[in-house]
């Protein structure tokens, strides 16, 4: 396996389409029509494809991977799918990362765990098509029926004739075989690569420190800039930049919108000069603090104008006649995405076009917004993707690309805008702070007859997921939400909304199960059976898949059989996939210690076992770390935590053992970038209750009274 650095499609055609022949197929991994596979003969051919597969006469197979890579393993998993259907020798496969230079990228986006589900079948088709053409070419050469031939490891094999031809030898002839309309895909049992643990194609570059990331991008003559941005609710009043401008290495200080950009020749000089800026801001809206939000949550929970999200049956009647009502509230703070690579973007605005280079999850959004801002045709804006040093949703936003473009257009020079960690933590688009209230009505027999959920969020939109479990399993149900509009910006954060909602819901269900004296696992299974046999309203989750992960997690963790350990259960459906988790806490000398988390995932077919385990383990660690430690609070529109000394991320000492299991059900892949995160907080809180009798209602856990004196994660 080798990889090329990112390249434009045009360059790819040059790399791939060798003058000496070979086969070059263009296809659409994002298009629904089956017609979208063609032999591409030359550069003059239409450039409307967004993926290419080439086989050189030397047998080198090159696959063009157009998706942003931010650690979700797409750059490895996509080509694996193509190569499996192609029966290619993986050691001869090269992966090329695409830039964005086409109008046709409908889903060149990494977010929502959607990349693989979106393209699974099309990638398989591309591989199978090439394989078909190679086999046909061999049949023609040998003058035998193609049905007597097989393909393996980059060879077409004629078993009867005891002969074989390599893909390289056949590639040129294959390019004149008609592209089949309908090509047969493999049976899953015949997969050779899919499901195996395949190492990341970029490992070598990453472990040797190659310049892969946006922050590493350098071009002769480019300027460096850092931007001072106002607190949320403030606007720029005046700037005195004389002292900053006088600092060594500083080229200019310019203001635009509410930004003050210090521009210079080196990062450190810019960073130093920036401290010499004298900026006055004035209020432009409310300057909010965390204390205000706490008050607001209480008010809006009772008096807020709620938008109804789902209503089944008659909740009021159910609660009036209930034998018992349980009410609980849960709250979480704002969170920063904090990818290890801070935001940055390179922009060069020229009169005839714009060149953008950097780490983004949504290159097309950056391109469209920059075109609009600068009043240019989108066709004149190119975006080249670098590798992303993490995203977690932050790089779905285009703000940091836009400001780089705006600055370059003012300076009339190429510039790279760099955010410091402080800029990153203060720069917005946070996971919104949310408070939930749950009410359960139980009848005299302990049946759950009524269920209410109200979510109050700050710029959180609909902070419920009204169709998730247990909707469909309860006769009388009301789910609504209240939103407070704030100048503090928010946006999707890995597993949007469900990253906290799952904890609240799964903690609550645990309490309800205990109130009716049922085992928490059995309680959930019973509710699911109820939803299956007698559904209430529409059901938008797959009951059998949910039961599947519940049972697998219970089995693998030895649920209910361990005398010395307190186990906590949690299960959640999000972003198309299902994950159940069991957390285990051991009491040692009266102190709880989190030992292990079992995760059972149903994400359909696992493409790359190594990548899948990474996503699940990483999701669990992420879910645990943010539930336990991370906390972004505000004072007058400014975060109080400005760097990793006060904004806590989980560390290596604080992780429990994690064991992953996957349901093997042959369903087409449904994605794994997010779904392992949401269940973790609930599993841990439920285990903590079992171990100590104390309930955790608010995050981060480490700041709660109930966790005083306890370092749950650290080994004792």
């Amino acid at each position, binding site marked *: 396996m080798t990889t090329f650095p990112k390249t434009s499609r045009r360059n790819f055609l040059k790399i791939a389409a060798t003058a000496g022949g070979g086969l070059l197929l263009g296809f659409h991994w994002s298009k629904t029509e089956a017609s979208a596979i063609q032999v591409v003969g030359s550069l003059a051919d239409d450039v409307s494809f967004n993926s290419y597969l080439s086989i050189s006469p030397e047998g080198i197979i090159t696959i063009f991977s157009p998706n942003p890579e931010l650690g979700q393993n797409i750059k490895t998993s996509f080509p694996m799918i193509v190569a499996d259907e192609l029966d290619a020798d993986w050691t001869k496969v090269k992966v090329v990362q695409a830039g964005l230079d086409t109008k046709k990228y409908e889903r060149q986006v990494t977010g929502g765990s959607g990349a693989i589900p979106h393209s699974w079948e099309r990638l398989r088709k591309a591989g199978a098509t090439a394989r078909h053409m190679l086999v046909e070419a061999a049949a023609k050469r040998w003058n035998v029926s193609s049905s007597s031939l097989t393909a393996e490891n980059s060879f077409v094999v004629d078993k009867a004739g005891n002969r074989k031809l390599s893909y390289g030898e056949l590639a040129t002839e294959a390019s004149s075989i008609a592209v089949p309309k309908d090509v047969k895909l493999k049976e899953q049992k015949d997969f050779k690569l899919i499901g195996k643990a395949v190492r990341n194609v970029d490992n070598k570059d*990453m472990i040797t*420190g190659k310049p892969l990331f946006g922050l590493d991008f350098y071009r002769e003559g480019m300027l460096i800039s850092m931007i001072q941005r106002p607190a949320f609710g403030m606007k720029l009043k005046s700037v005195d930049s004389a002292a900053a401008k006088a600092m060594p290495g500083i080229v200019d200080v310019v203001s635009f919108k509410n930004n003050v950009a210090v521009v210079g020749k080196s990062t450190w000089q810019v960073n130093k000069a920036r401290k010499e800026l004298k900026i006055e801001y004035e209020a432009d809206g409310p300057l909010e603090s965390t204390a205000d939000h706490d008050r607001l949550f209480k008010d809006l929970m009772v008096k807020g104008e709620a938008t109804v999200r789902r209503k089944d049956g008659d909740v009021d009647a159910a609660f009036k006649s209930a034998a018992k009502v349980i009410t609980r509230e849960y709250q979480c703070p704002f969170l920063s995405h904090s990818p290890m690579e801070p935001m940055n973007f390179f922009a060069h605005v020229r009169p005839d076009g714009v060149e953008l280079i950097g780490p983004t999850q949504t290159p097309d959004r950056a391109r469209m917004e920059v075109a609009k801002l600068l009043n240019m045709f989108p066709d004149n804006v190119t975006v080249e993707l670098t590798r992303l040093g993490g995203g977690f949703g932050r790089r779905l936003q285009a703000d940091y690309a836009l400001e780089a473009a705006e600055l370059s257009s003012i300076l009339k020079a190429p510039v790279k805008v760099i955010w410091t960690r402080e800029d990153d933590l203060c720069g917005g688009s946070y996971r919104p702070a949310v408070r939930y209230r749950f009410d359960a009505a139980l009848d005299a027999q302990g049946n759950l007859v009524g269920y209410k959920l109200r979510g109050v969020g700050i710029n959180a939109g609909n902070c419920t997921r009204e169709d998730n479990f247990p909707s469909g399993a309860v006769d009388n149900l009301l789910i609504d939400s209240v939103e407070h509009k704030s100048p503090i910006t928010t946006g999707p954060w890995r597993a949007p909304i469900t990253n906290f909602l799952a904890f609240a819901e799964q903690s609550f269900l645990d309490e309800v199960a205990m109130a009716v004296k049922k085992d928490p696992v059995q309680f959930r299974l019973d509710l699911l059976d109820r939803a299956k046999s007698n559904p209430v309203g529409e059901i938008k989750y797959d009951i059998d898949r949910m039961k599947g992960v519940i049972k697998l997690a219970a089995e693998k963790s030895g649920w209910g059989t361990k005398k010395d350990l307190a186990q906590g259960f949690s299960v959640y459906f999000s972003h198309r996939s299902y994950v159940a988790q069991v957390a285990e806490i051991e009491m040692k000398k009266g102190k709880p210690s989190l030992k292990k988390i079992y995760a059972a995932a149903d994400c359909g077919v696992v493409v790359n076992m190594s990548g899948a385990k990474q996503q699940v383990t990483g999701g669990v660690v992420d879910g645990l770390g943010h539930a336990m430690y991370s906390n972004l609070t505000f004072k007058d529109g400014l975060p109080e935590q400005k760097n990793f000394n006060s904004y806590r991320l989980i560390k*290596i000492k604080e992780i429990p053992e994690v064991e992953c299991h996957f349901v093997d059900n042959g369903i087409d892949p449904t994605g794994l970038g997010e779904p392992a995160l949401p269940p973790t907080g609930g599993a841990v809180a439920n285990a903590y209750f079992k171990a100590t009798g104390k309930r955790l209602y608010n995050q981060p856990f480490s700041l709660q009274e109930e966790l005083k004196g306890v370092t749950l994660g650290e080994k004792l």
Partner: protein
Amino acid sequence: MANYKLQINGRSYEADVDPDTPLLWVLRDNFGLVGTKYGCGIAQCGACTVHLNGNAVRSCTLPVSAVGSGKVTTIEGLSADGDHPVQLAWDEVDVAQCGYCQAGQIMSATALLNKKSKPTVAEIENAMNGNICRCGTYHRIKEAIVLASSKLK
């Protein structure tokens, strides 16, 4: 501004920079050695870890003027072709997700193993606790260090 001659990866480099410029930015901006990463700038994340005379140091808070004639090793200089036992273990265990923190992780791990070729799990955790991985690759980091350690004499 002052002139500094630095010994990095067995070669000598020269830069005209302010004395308080952190080694990190001299490596990245002046010498194009961008394998060493910026993550926090205040010695809290370990992304910028390099070796100074064999010890793991955070280059984001090490002024260039304090480096003197010390021998600096960065990720680029760890091996000729990415074949240091720690790098090989990182590949074999398939540690990296986004990869951004990994140069720093590898430099911290190597410094540990240079001092103690058979560290205990607790020693591994202690040595690595200052290196944050936002992607949560900690399990494989531990696994890779154990693997590399098993291959060292």
